């Protein structure tokens, strides 16, 4: 297959064949991480700039490791202490990146649409969305898909429950898009105050009761719950949230025998996930982190290489 994407802003434009091909490429990239010398010269001479206007540890280091394993030079540009905190406009940031001859720009920003804006303005560099506001986090969706496929095999017809604060979750948005594209049936659950209004038009169903939602599912995906949601009056109390929608042993026991438990991290233990589940046999949370590096290697390799 010829790879036709220069950027990754959203998975919307990717076909199912492209997703499958991408996951196959990821599998070969993962093998590199098992080697005694984890470095190949594939992206020698390429410059990747990590532009994080929002805090991130795993996504940023994951992109950094991915770039370094492929021999790209990775530069980290974080919002605190950068020119952004000195009042530089996004437009000027773009010209700066262009002037530095960046080949790839990884961007996370609190505002929806910033990666899209950069992709339109940057003439040469590829742009990778590492999370924009509540809109999307496509590389998280790719690593979730990859992890699920490694554990469950073909995902066609598999059943997934996404439980938690779907409304504010860019991970949920990207995951719904990606998993549905691969033929997975998706059910949402969580407090009604944290659900988007248009669930039916997204091709997913909403079930308030987490026990009903989790029942017989192959993938249980628990979203990160922010404590501020309680102050905003969107959840009753942390204890009640945990009892009703948290990943507990009794909730997980309702899922299918082969079920995996996923979480995008960082976890709030005792809030959306109990420690016994997070560290339990169904949890693939650390595999997700590992997959994240392989997925970003495949992305950088496919989008940065070649003459464009």
């Amino acid at each position, binding site marked *: 297959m010829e790879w036709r*994407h220069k950027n*990754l802003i959203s998975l*919307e434009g990717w076909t199912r064949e492209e997703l499958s091909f991408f996951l196959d490429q990821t599998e070969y990239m993962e093998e590199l991480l098992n080697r*005694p*010398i984890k470095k190949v010269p594939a992206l020698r001479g390429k410059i990747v700039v990590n532009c994080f206007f929002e805090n991130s540890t795993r996504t940023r280091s994951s992109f950094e490791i991915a770039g370094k394993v492929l021999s790209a030079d990775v530069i980290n540009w974080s919002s605190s202490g950068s020119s952004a905190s000195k009042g530089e406009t996004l437009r000027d940031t773009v010209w700066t990146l262009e002037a530095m001859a960046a080949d790839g720009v990884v961007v996370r920003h609190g505002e929806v649409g910033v990666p899209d804006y950069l992709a339109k303005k940057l003439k040469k560099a590829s742009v990778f969305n590492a999370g924009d506001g509540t809109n999307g986090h496509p590389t998280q969706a790719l690593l979730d898909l990859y992890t699920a496929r490694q554990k469950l095999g073909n995902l066609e017809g598999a059943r997934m429950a996404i439980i938690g604060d779907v409304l504010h979750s860019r991970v949920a948005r990207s995951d719904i898009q990606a998993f549905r594209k691969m033929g997975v049936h998706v059910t949402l659950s969580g407090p009604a105050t944290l659900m988007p209004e248009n669930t039916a038009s*997204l091709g997913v169903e909403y079930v308030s009761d987490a026990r009903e939602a989790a029942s017989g599912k192959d993938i249980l995906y628990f979203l990160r719950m922010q404590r501020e949601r309680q102050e905003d009056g969107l959840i009753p109390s942390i204890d009640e949230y945990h009892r009703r929608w948290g990943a507990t042993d009794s909730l997980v026991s309702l899922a299918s025998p082969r079920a995996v438990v996923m979480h995008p991290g960082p976890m709030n233990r005792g809030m959306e996930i109990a420690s016994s589940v997070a560290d339990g046999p169904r949890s693939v949370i650390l595999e997700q982190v590992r997959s994240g590096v392989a997925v970003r290697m495949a992305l950088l390799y496919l989008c940065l290489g*070649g003459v464009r």
Partner: protein
Amino acid sequence: MGERLFFMTKKGDGDVTAKPEKKWSEKATVLSAGDMERILRRIAVEIVERNKGLENVILLGIQRRGVYLAARLREMLREGEKVKVPTGELDITLYRDDISTLSDQPVVHSTSVPCDISGKRVILVDDVLFTGRTVRAALDAITDLGRPERVQLVVLVDRGHRELPIAADYVGKTIPTSRSENVEVRVTELDGNDSVVICERIGGDEDGVEA
């Protein structure tokens, strides 16, 4: 209200690139399935002869056709010598020296090595030896996997036109070619039959150099 809208409607990232495909026409079949089998049997014997047995020997097939040729050699050695030679596959894509000049990023295939190659005799298996650049890349890949005692090279066809100082230890058949031709090794597993075919680019070739 805006907050509750789920997906932003956006056009894709609008970055689609289309490329013309190369076309080849078949010119001549130079090796039949029977020829290929006899050649590989001879090479299997030569491997045993040159290494005085098969101790410490590992076969590594270069993706993609080399993988299948290595598997044939392993079977022949198992029948002939009653030895199971560890056999792996090596993908050299990430080590290519032309990776930043190709219009398309080449697809990666699997690398899977059965054991630590340090101190072993690694026998690389490839279908066609041409410029030597694939073998150069394979040697770099091997260096990253360990430090073998020695590396030997098996090729089914040597078609000339070397651009690097590389030679094979075991050659199935030397076939003089022109640069505008392509030597296609076909294996049943991928192509439906075993054969070696010479193809020519349709519409001639601008950099055609006679061998």
